[in-house]
């Protein structure tokens, strides 16, 4: 997760728009149309578990350290929401008899607070609330993009779309609360 991400994504879109022809998306035969839990669903669940575990660490840190009561409460609610999602995501994989494999440890993925970022935040002093707010916003905004991708993907199974849609609404609701904190 980084501040560069949105800029990077915009640049990539701009580059794709002016440089290369936009490829036509191909259906993914293994899951499209069949409604079967396939590679896209597994990839989404694995990425979301890896992201969610790091997000729990971020939110727990905020609920312990934030000085503003509203921010502390928002952090606690975020942590609770991510824990509930982790249970559901692991349930999706278990229902499909897919053992969870961590494909993303150590990697900087969209919406994923990294160990380095968490360590730096943990070492913050009087500016903790400001820095936590920035990190939480990055998690929520970037993660919203990832879950929207699963909602929109023609390769997602119905149960993935249903969970991802709830995850998307959760992120937008939390972002609204964050914005109201000013």
């Amino acid at each position, binding site marked *: 997760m980084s501040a*560069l*991400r949105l*800029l*990077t*994504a915009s*640049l*990539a879109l701009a*580059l*794709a728009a002016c*440089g*290369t*022809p936009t*490829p*036509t*998306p*191909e*259906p*993914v*035969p293994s*899951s499209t149309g069949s409604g079967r839990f396939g*590679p*896209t669903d*597994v*990839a*989404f669940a694995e*990425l979301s578990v890896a992201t969610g575990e790091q997000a729990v660490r971020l939110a727990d840190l905020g609920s312990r350290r934030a000085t503003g009561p509203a921010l502390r409460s928002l952090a606690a609610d975020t942590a609770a929401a991510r824990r509930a999602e982790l249970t559901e995501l692991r349930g999706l994989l278990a229902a499909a008899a*897919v*053992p969870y*494999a*961590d*494909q*993303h*440890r*150590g*990697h*900087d*993925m*969209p919406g994923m607070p*990294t*160990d*380095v970022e968490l360590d730096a935040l943990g070492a913050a002093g009087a500016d903790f609330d400001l820095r936590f707010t920035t990190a939480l916003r990055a998690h929520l905004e970037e993660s919203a*993009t*990832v879950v*929207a*991708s*699963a909602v929109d*993907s*023609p*390769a*997602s199974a119905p149960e993935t779309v249903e969970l991802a849609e709830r995850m998307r609404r959760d992120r937008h609701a939390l972002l609204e609360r964050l914005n109201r904190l000013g």
Partner: protein
Amino acid sequence: MEKKTRTRQFGLHVAVVTALVGAALSASVSTPGPAKAEPVRVAEFLADCRLSHRLPDDPIVLPGLPGASHSHDFFGNHATDAHSDHASLARATGNCDPVVDLSSYWVPTLYDGATAVPPTGITFYYLGEGVNAPAAIRPTPVGLKIVAGNARATGEADSTARWSCLHHGEVNPSKNFVTCPRDSMLETYLDFPQCWNGRDLDSADHKSHMTTPVAGNCPSTHPVPVPKLRMVLRYPVTGDGARLRLSSGPGYTMHGDFFNVWPAAEMERRVRNCINVVLKCGHDGQHG
């Protein structure tokens, strides 16, 4: 090309290879005219590619999920995105030399400060080294997907990345970024595993259908040797390595992805003409 001859020698051929490579190199230097050099006894063919596009997509690790990845630099095939499969890639065009190679290759994007820096030298070598019997190497199967490098490296200890400086061997190679002199370029090498299980074009962790040889032989679990893919990238970056980062994190998180879209006949011809008989071929898959 900064060929690392030491990594291309194997078994009993060391002395012979060294002598012949030396002879061939000096021949090509001293006789630049039409005189034909002796064939070089190195099992190799290659593709030189360019940056095609940049997207936060990964059709192997995050298939069907556009925008769900960190930024990747895509080389070769022009059409690669989150939804790509072999059929869609095979219908598209690419930018490699030779043009028949429609394969897709990708790596995390390199940033110098806030600026994304694409590599300007992008070479994929297909090599016979690493196994004792190059004559037994089989063509890379159509549609094979391989992820190389430890994408989950948490430090230098569990990383297979290699960063170095072009023409500046005095700068020790490292698993993390190095600081290169002004007249140099930042280089990275990545070798892909070359033993295939003979059955799966991909696997749940995108790794376990492939492995590396043990003492020059592919193990019984992965009995089919295919050419070893070596990616060599050169970035126009010099100076303080501390300014650099990858979209995936620090330098030791470097990894590469390969989706084989070589036409079967072109791959088969190169393996037969170059790899099995241990001869160095050019872009056209022909040897001296």
